């Protein structure tokens, strides 16, 4: 799906002064050339004058002009048409839809480009489309809307999604795209509201992204905030109010079921006393206790306008989301945005843009969700007989003999008091000098991303039982500040000689990033009220402080040339040289080439009727990634308590260091090839893009485990080569049945095939240690972070069946898995482990339907991902939580002597480390298909003083289908330990009512 901004330039220059002529009355009708529908409100202007009118509800107009006048007819979304009156009293004017997009202008790095000149696949989505989704931030709203972009959402209030463009190229946790907001590099756009955005463009291939070579390896997301438009003063309000309801809530075993399972599991444990359900006071569904319905609402106000010289846009937004965890858990954010552009004279232009965003968050204790999973369901949330508990009489698992690894989940959520408060300023200002009119320009800009944040964790004095409790209240506070500054200087030359049009840009950029923080901790802090929670009020004895900082610098030079011959042959060349302080190899060089051929511009295509437009594109380029941790060339000393010995009960300062040499870090570089085509067919009703991409990331940077003996478990290094390849397809069908009914269907699909090609002499990198055993491998020939373990052949029906089996394994009993003897040596050992799939989907897709009937509009969108796996690690904790609870699915399906399951183990087997390891019982399919949004709206336009008013009802994520035995298959994580579900925040559906009003 491709959405575009359309900038219509109405050029109405009259140079010929007309001879005085007799005016005559001209009337006519304006229609759509392809559909014949009349166009209401089209503008008719006598060329060179201010004499004009607009068409009425039937598309008709009437105007008095001289008989030889020229009329300029324009309508939003259509190409302008000039019509010579030629003394005709009646005119039939047909406008051609602008969907051929000849004049569409797309924001690309350091400038704009006409869509027709593009040699790269670029996807753009309008802020107004993002705003249709009920989501806390724009990237969440993008889920399923764009090919090549994977968005993994998280249900916690205010938490940003994990975004991957064209697969996972980086292995460290740095595979995130670069976000550029009006020229400012930012790490994410969680601080923006969809309402702040004019449009959002994703640069996917090397030809487009290489201009951001320094950090483009994982794709670039360009965000343009709202701008004023000429001659349109716009005041609008948009808002919604919604209720969030937890969906796909997991069911756990009840008290009776739990007791049955634990007794079953320990029937053969020596010394085990069977539990009796009657000894326990309650049957508690911990998830039900932890979850609630919650509200969210959003309000945006925008004012914008422009004259020939000045354009302005001012916006304000407020967003609030309550968490669905039944505890202090919410997010609120307000944004203010101001943009001003001024043409000082015909050679000098300047402007600035700023966004101020303030966000406050009360974090949930996500661990409570895990705790709810494992806690025995046998005691109640509150227990008046638990006199040791204070200030609230929570029930304690220790009262019933459970170990200290268990704690009341509701109490864990309740006593968590963690908040964050952040203020962010994104500011950019520029000055542009035209050196040769229309041709040579110099632009310099200063871009700043400044953030200040504060986080606070306060634990009051409390006790529940066991080790759940503290005898002194404690406080930890962190203040942090970061500033990222970029100074860009650009020289742009544009010219056209005959049929050769070209554009050349030279640029230089300097980056300075610094972040620093300070943390203080204290104990015995009176929790009287918020005013009393300070380090100052604490006990002096246990007060500590700490600080830290990061600093990076970079310098870049870059150039881009674009060339268009006769609107047929296109070329884009870029080259970028970047130096980064993070690498020992300072300079990286990133060239790219993009070529395009507009086939429909050729004579031999003139007569065909299949394509209205067809462009074939190809590109190659290299992209760098400096979004990696800075590597120190030298070994650093480590100090503090962990490096200081104790003598005579006194800590004696020490400074230690690792005894393994740091590695020389080279640039992580992506090498990407893209082939694609853009086309329009069926009288412009069908539009589509098809792309094939192949990107290879070389010198992948990440912390990889190293052999023991150097004092550290892992080192940052260049560790190999990763390939992502796939196909992206976007199709859009839009049609107008009659003047009352239009509809649109959009479809996008992306395939990803991810494969590690080399690992610098290593066979694999282990990842995702669950209880001391690695569960994933990043290995040559397999996807990054593939799950690795035993394939299950079957479950032994009985011991005698097991004993007859010639294949030996550690435990052979009924109810135990029989692992598959992969190498056929009749012994199950680590040689029989195999790859069990990866957390990277091979297909992501989205479908949108929308329709308008008169003033009614309706839409539904679907999205899904297929083929990826998730590790159900919540189930993999039974070595520590051996007498913990079970999910209901396990209760219903487990192997028992009377119900011999073929894929579930017995309760006894389930507790053993033989079963509790990566195998395809725990590695589950994470495919899902979801109704992302259903919306019905009605537009009222007959209200006095209001241009238009739309009210709508929306359901966000009302239904998701998946087979995974957890809350949600959307589980993020660092690439080599991705898709590990331990305590994922559940997902929620949002039902809301909204309003959009233009004054």
């Amino acid at each position, binding site marked *: 799906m491709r959405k575009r901004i359309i900038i219509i330039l109405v050029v109405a220059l009259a140079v010929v002064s007309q001879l005085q002529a007799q005016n005559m009355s001209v009337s006519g009708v304006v229609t759509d050339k392809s559909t014949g529908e009349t166009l209401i409100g089209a503008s008719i202007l006598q060329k060179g004058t201010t004499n004009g009118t607009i068409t009425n509800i039937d598309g008709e107009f009437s105007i008095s002009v001289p008989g030889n006048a020229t009329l300029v007819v324009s309508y939003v979304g259509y190409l302008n048409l000039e019509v010579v009156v030629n003394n005709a009293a009646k005119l039939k004017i047909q406008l051609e839809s602008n969907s051929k997009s000849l004049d569409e202008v797309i924001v690309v790095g350091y400038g704009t480009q006409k869509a027709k000149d593009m040699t790269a696949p670029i996807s753009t989505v309008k802020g107004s489309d993002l705003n249709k989704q009920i989501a806390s931030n724009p990237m969440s709203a993008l889920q399923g809307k764009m090919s090549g972009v994977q968005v993994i959402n998280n249900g916690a209030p205010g938490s940003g999604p994990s975004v991957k463009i064209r697969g996972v190229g980086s292995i460290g946790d740095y595979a995130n795209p670069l976000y550029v907001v009006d020229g400012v590099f930012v790490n994410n756009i969680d601080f923006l509201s969809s309402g702040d955005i004019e449009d959002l463009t994703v640069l996917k291939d090397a030809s487009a992204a290489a201009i951001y070579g320094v950090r483009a390896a994982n794709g670039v997301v360009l965000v343009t905030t709202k701008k004023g438009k000429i001659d349109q003063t716009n005041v609008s309000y948009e808002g919604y109010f919604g209720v969030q309801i937890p969906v796909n809530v997991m069911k756990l075993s009840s008290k009776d079921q739990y007791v049955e399972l634990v007794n079953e599991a320990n029937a053969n444990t020596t010394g085990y006393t069977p539990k009796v359900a009657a000894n326990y006071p309650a049957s508690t569904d911990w998830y039900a206790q932890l979850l609630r319905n919650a509200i969210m609402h959003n309000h945006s106000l925008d004012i914008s306008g422009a004259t020939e010289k000045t354009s302005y846009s001012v916006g304000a937004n407020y967003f609030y989301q309550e968490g669905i965890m039944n505890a202090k858990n919410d997010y609120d954010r307000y944004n203010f945005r101001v943009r001003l552009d001024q043409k000082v004279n015909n050679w000098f232009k300047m402007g600035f843009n700023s966004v101020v965003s303030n966000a406050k968050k009360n974090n949930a204790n996500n661990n409570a969700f895990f705790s709810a999973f494992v806690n025995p369901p046998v005691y109640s949330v509150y227990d008046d007989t638990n006199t040791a508990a204070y200030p609230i009489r929570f029930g304690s698992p220790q009262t019933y003999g459970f170990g200290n690894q268990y704690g009341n989940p509701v109490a864990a959520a309740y006593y968590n008091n963690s908040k964050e408060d952040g203020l962010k300023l994104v500011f950019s200002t520029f000055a542009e000098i035209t050196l040769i009119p229309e041709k040579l320009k110099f632009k*310099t800009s200063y871009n700043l991303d400044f953030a200040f944040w504060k986080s606070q964790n306060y634990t009051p004095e409390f006790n529940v039982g066991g080790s759940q409790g*503290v005898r002194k209240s404690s406080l930890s506070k962190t203040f942090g500040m970061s500033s990222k500054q970029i100074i860009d200087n650009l020289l742009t030359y544009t010219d056209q000689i005959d049929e050769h049009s070209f554009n050349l840009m030279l640029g230089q950029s300097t980056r300075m990033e610094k972040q620093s923080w300070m943390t203080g901790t204290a104990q015995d802090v009176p929790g009287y009220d918020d005013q009393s929670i300070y380090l100052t009020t604490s006990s002096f004895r246990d007060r500590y402080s700490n600080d830290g900082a990061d600093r990076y610098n970079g310098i870049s030079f870059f150039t881009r040339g674009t060339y268009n011959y006769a609107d047929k042959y296109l070329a884009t060349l870029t080259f970028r040289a970047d130096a980064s302080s993070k690498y020992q190899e300072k300079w990286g060089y990133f060239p790219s080439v993009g070529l395009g051929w507009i086939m429909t511009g050729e004579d031999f295509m003139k007569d065909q009727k299949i394509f209205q437009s067809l462009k074939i594109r190809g590109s190659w380029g290299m992209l760098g990634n400096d979004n990696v941790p800075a590597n120190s060339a030298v070994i650093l000393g480590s100090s503090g308590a962990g490096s200081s010995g104790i003598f*005579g009960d006194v800590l004696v300062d020490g400074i230690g260091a690792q005894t393994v040499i740091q590695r020389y870090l080279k640039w992580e570089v992506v090498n990407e090839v893209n082939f694609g085509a853009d086309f329009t067919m069926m009288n412009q009703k069908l539009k589509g893009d098809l792309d094939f991409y192949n990107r290879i990331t070389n010198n992948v940077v990440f912390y990889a485990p190293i*052999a023991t003996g150097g*004092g550290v478990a892992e080192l940052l290094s260049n560790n190999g080569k990763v390939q992502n390849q796939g196909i992206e397809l976007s199709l859009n069908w839009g049609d107008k049945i009659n003047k009352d009914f239009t509809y649109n269907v959009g479809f996008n699909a992306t395939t990803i095939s991810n494969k590690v090609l080399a690992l610098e002499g290593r066979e694999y990198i282990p990842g995702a240690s669950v209880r001391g055993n690695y569960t994933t491998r990043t290995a040559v020939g397999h996807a990054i972070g593939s799950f690795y373990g035993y394939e299950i052949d079957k479950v032994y029906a009985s011991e005698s069946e097991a004993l007859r089996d010639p294949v030996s394994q550690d435990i052979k009993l009924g109810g135990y898995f029989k692992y598959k003897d992969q190498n056929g040596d009749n012994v199950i050992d680590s040689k029989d482990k195999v790859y069990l799939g990866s957390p990277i989907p091979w297909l992501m897709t989205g479908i949108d339907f929308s329709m308008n009937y008169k003033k009614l509009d309706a839409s539904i969108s679907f999205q899904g991902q297929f083929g990826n796996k998730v590790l159900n690690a919540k189930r993999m904790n039974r070595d520590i939580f*051996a007498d913990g609870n079970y999910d209901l699915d396990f209760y219903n399906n487990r192997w028992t002597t009377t119900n011999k399951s073929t894929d579930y183990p017995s309760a006894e087997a389930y507790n053993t480390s033989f079963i509790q390891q990566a195998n395809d019982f725990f590695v589950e399919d994470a495919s899902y298909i979801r109704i992302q949004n259903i919306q019905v709206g009605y537009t009222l336009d007959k209200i006095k003083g209001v241009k238009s008013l739309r009210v709508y009802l929306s359901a966000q994520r009302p239904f998701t289908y998946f087979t995974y035995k957890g809350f949600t298959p959307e589980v993020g994580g660092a690439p080599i330990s991705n898709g590990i579900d331990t305590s994922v925040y559940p997902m929620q559906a949002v039902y809301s009512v909204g309003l959009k009003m233009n004054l």
Partner: protein
Amino acid sequence: MKNKIFIALLSTLALAGCQEFLDIRPEGTVPSSGLDYSKSENVFLPVSAAYAKMRTANTHSFPYIGAFEITSDNADKGSTPEDNPTMKELDDLNYDSGNGLINELWIGYFDVVSGANHAIAQMPLFENALQNADAKKYTRQCAGEAKVIRAYAYFNLTRLFGRVPVIDTTLTAEELAAKNQETTDSLYRFIEKDLLEAISVLPDSYTKDWAGRINKYTAMAIKAKVHLYQNEWDSVASLTDKIMASNRYDLLPEFRSVFSIDNENSKESLFEIQSSTLGKSTGDGTFLEYAYVQGPRGNSPGNMQGWGFCTPSTSLINFFTARGETERAAATFLYRGSKTPEGDSIKAACSNPAYNGKVYTPSQYNLWNYNGYGFDHNVRIIRYSDVLLMFAEAKAHGAIAGNSSGFDALAAINKVRDRVKLLPLGAVTLQDIWDERRAELALEEDRFFDLIRTGQAATALAGKGFNAAKHNLFPIPSQQMQLNTHLTQNPNYN
């Protein structure tokens, strides 16, 4: 607009200072080579860091009690039957190379080796930079301490795994991943060399504020034990004799008090791992959970309870009863439903009948905020009674060296017995000494390897299916075999 030009100029200027602009060491750090080597007060910094590496969960806490004691006939896993299957595997001698606790020991002791290697490598830099002869001498002494630390780590690695790589310097990650294992023999040669060099440079003692620091006699005691494990009786006798003849060490009069917080680093102590909350109730981890994980499970209040692991076995209790042990039994066993002389109740509702009494820490010492128990309890590695019993064993084996202290085997063992009010023996057999070791050092992480060393394991651990061909060594952890493919597995493990 002038501003803009100014900024443009600035960024051009920035280019001029390009190298400086782009070479940034991470903020808030000091390069490891950035010490001021000319200052004598800095000499101890890297050595202190090496000591700190021994104060870790991996080396002297949960995995430690598991592999060194719970495996033996002295202790059971403890806690509730279903709790912690990984530890249960150790108790049942039913572990394989995937056992996480065994892996933690490997990592922990190799981290100690790394810390010691760093300190050893730093000392010559100080020696070169310092002018004063005493200061130069002090750098050699400090190197000696670090060598003892390294030798101790390798001694445990060797006992655990038999064959491990020798790492004695800074390497690249590739070199680490390509290290081959050394034989047990050559590991012992490496350990002895470190200890020998250390003994020649270490002082006899330190001032009181350095309590717990390694001196010459610590090195000798460790070396004696290293020889003990190789049946080199003259070396054992000679070293232990020197310690005894020094008159710097003695048994405390009362056995139970040896394990109190107040008697840490006493004259009975040759080597202890220091654990302390430093009198605070929060902050960075300066303590071990060694005592905590063995504390009474399900007891109350919160600061009088632990995880309840490593509980005395019936075999151990019966052994004490049969010997008529009273003093040592009172110190070694902490029964539920009892009240300690210090006034703490061990509630009848606790999960296990008895707990390790040697880690008992009265509530007045447990002041940590988060329900901590025994965080200030040091881990006793070598006590003077161990020295006496090593001497006795060497002499009983016919060692001719080591006669300056005036002790013989009988005198040495009777000194140990006398303190705990047992009648002196009239004659001494090897079995007497081994049994004395069991009674004296029970639940002090000596037993499992003592059984293997003395060949008693096959009978003592018959019930657990002990097979010397397999269980004399632990498996090389599978994770380590993945990280270094040059490692080969020990016999009879997959």
